C-alpha cells in the first residue's frame, strides 16, 4: 500500500451514552500536508482528535498509520508511534518548569546506577528542552521557570513547541491560536508550516476560519458528527466554508 495516507481513520463511530458524537467518519492526513478540521461546537472535532490521539477508543472503525491498522490502548501508544497532540485545554502541568513539561512522560535519567534507581538528569533536560524549543522556532528564556509564571500566549508556545519537537509522523493541534494575539497567531501558523516542511502530517482544528483558509492544503468539515465535505482548500472561500459548517450550503 505505497499510496496509503500517512494517518487514516476509516468508518469511525463514537457515542457517549445516547449521544452520537461521531458517525461513520473517514479522515486522513498525508506527509507534508496541513489538513483543517472544522465544524460548529459539538460537531465532533474534539472527539475525533481524542480518538486519533488514543485518549478514547472508537466504538467502531479502524485507524491506520502508514497503511498498517493500529489500536491505541492509551495516549502512550500513540505517542510511541510518533503522533503528538496539542490539546485545547492546555496539556501542560502548571507547577512544573518549562523543561520538565517538555520532557513530561519522557524524562531523561542520570547515567549509571542513579538512573537505574529512577533519578532524573534535570540539567540535561533543561538544556535540551531549550535547544529543542529553539530548533522548532520558539525562543525561550529560562526553561527553569514554572509554566504558571507564563502568560497564556507563552504557555501555548511551549505546548506547541513540545508537540512539534517530539512529533515524528503526525501532529494534531486543537485550537492552537485560541487566547492568542494577532501577531502570536501568525507565528503559530508559521510554526505549523515549518512542521509541514519537515514532512509531518499536520491536523489543524480551529474556529478561526481565515487562519484555516490561509494555512491548510485541505479542509474537512464535520457537522453533527458526520463529514459533510472533504475538499482542497482552494475550493473554499470564507463564505462557502462558513455556509458548509453551518449547513446553509448543502454539500453533496
Amino acid at each position, binding site marked *: 500500500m505505497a499510496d496509503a495516507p500517512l494517518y487514516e481513520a476509516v468508518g469511525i463511530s463514537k457515542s457517549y451514552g445516547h449521544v452520537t458524537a461521531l458517525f461513520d467518519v473517514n479522515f486522513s492526513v498525508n506527509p507534508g500536508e496541513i489538513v483543517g478540521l472544522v465544524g460548529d461546537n459539538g460537531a465532533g472535532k474534539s472527539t475525533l482528535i481524542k480518538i486519533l490521539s488514543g485518549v478514547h477508543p472508537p466504538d467502531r472503525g479502524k485507524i491506520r498509520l502508514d497503511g498498517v491498522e493500529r489500536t491505541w490502548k492509551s495516549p502512550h501508544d500513540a505517542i510511541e508511534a510518533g503522533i503528538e497532540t496539542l490539546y485545547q485545554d*492546555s*496539556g501542560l502541568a*502548571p507547577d512544573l518548569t518549562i523543561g520538565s513539561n517538555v520532557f513530561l512522560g519522557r524524562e531523561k535519567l542520570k547515567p549509571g546506577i542513579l538512573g537505574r534507581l529512577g533519578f532524573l538528569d534535570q540539567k540535561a533536560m533543561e538544556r535540551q528542552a531549550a535547544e529543542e524549543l529553539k530548533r522548532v522556532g520558539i525562543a525561550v528564556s529560562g526553561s527553569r521557570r514554572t509554566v504558571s509564571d*507564563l502568560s497564556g*500566549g507563552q504557555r501555548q508556545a511551549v505546548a506547541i513547541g513540545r508537540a512539534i519537537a517530539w512529533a515524528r509522523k503526525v501532529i494534531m493541534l486543537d485550537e492552537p491560536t485560541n487566547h492568542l494575539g494577532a501577531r502570536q497567531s*501568525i507565528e503559530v501558523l508559521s510554526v505549523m508550516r515549518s512542521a509541514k516542511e519537515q514532512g509531518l502530517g499536520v491536523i489543524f482544528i480551529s474556529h478561526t476560519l481565515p487562519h484555516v483558509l490561509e494555512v491548510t492544503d485541505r479542509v474537512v468539515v464535520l457537522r453533527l458528527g458526520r463529514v459533510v465535505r472533504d475538499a482542497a482548500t482552494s475550493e473554499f472561500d470564507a463564505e462557502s466554508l462558513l455556509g458548509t459548517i453551518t449547513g446553509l450550503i448543502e454539500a453533496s
Partner: protein
Amino acid sequence: MTMTPASTEGQGRAAPAADPNPPATEPRDWARSILGNQQFLLLVALGALILYFYSKRSVFLSSGEMANILDDFCSLILLAVGETFVIVSGGIDLSVGSTASFAGVIGAFSMRGMVSHNDSEALVLVVGTIVCAAVGAGVGLVNAALINWLRLVPFVATLATLGAGAGMAIVLSHGIPIGDDTRAIIFSQAKVGPFSWPVFIVIGILVISWLYLHLSRYGRYTFALGSNEFAARAAGINVRRHLVSVYVLSGLLSGLGGMFLYLRLGSGAPTSGAGDELRAIAAVVIGGASLLGGSGRLSGTILGGLILTTVTSGLIISNVNPNWDQVAVAVLIALAAALQALRPGRRRA
C-alpha cells in the same frame, strides 16, 4: 523575559508583543522572595516557639524533653511523609492515623506470641515491622481501589477506611492495648550517639523520601499528576498505576508509624493513632504544600512536623490543659492556609 514563537522571517523584535501578563514589578518580586521562601519563615517560627517555651520553663531544652519531642516527631512524621506524596499528587489520605492504630494492633497480635516464647527482641521487632508495613500497605491498596475502581473522591474513600480501620482496631482488641512488651520499650531506647536508634531509621526514611519526591521520575510524576491530571495522562503517564503506588506508600508508612507507636507504648493500642490524620495533614499544609496538589516540599513537611510536636510538648510542660493541643493544631492549619492564600503567584483553583 518574553517568550513567543520566534518568527522564522525574523520580523520585528523591536516591537514587543502585547503580553497580557506584564513582567513582575519590583515590589512584587520582593514580596515573593520573602513570602515565597516558606522554609525560611518556618525555621524562624520554629526558633521563636522553642525560645518562647524555653523562656517559660527552662526544662523545655533538657535532654529528656528533647527526646520526648523526637519520639513524638518520629511517629508523626512517617504519616506526614506519606501524606506529602498523596497531597502533592492532588489527593488526600484521611486514614493515616487509624491505619497506624490498626496496623499497630495487628502487629502487636503477631508479636505477642513471640514475646511469650521469649524469642529474641530483634526478631520480634523485625516480624512486627513487616506485619505493620504489610497491613498498612493493604489499607493503602483498599484506598486506591476505592478511588480508582469505585471512582470515589479521595476524601470519601479515605474517610471510609479511617472509620473502618479505627473500628476494626477496637473490635479486634476489645478496646484494650494488645501486649505488654516492656523489653521493646527498653530495646528501642538504646542510644546511638545523642539519639535512640529508631531516630536514625526515621532520618534514613526522610532522606530517601526527599530524594525520591524531588529528584526522581517517581516524584516528577507525582507532581505532574497533582498539577494537571489530564496533562499527565496525555503525556503517556500511567495515572492509575501511579495513584495506586502513592496510596500504598502512604499506607505503608502509616503502618510503620503504628510500629513506632508500639515501640513507645510496648503495646498495640487501638486508639494510639487517633487524630493523627489531622496532625499529619497539618504538618504538610504548614510545610507549604497546596491542598490543590502539584506543589509542596518534604523539607517543609519536616519543619511543619517539628513545629507541631514542639507546640504539643511546650503546652504539656507549661501545664496547659492538653485538650488545648487540638485547638493549637487547628489554629496552625488556619494560619498556614491563610499564608498560602496570600502568597503571590498562585494559580487559581
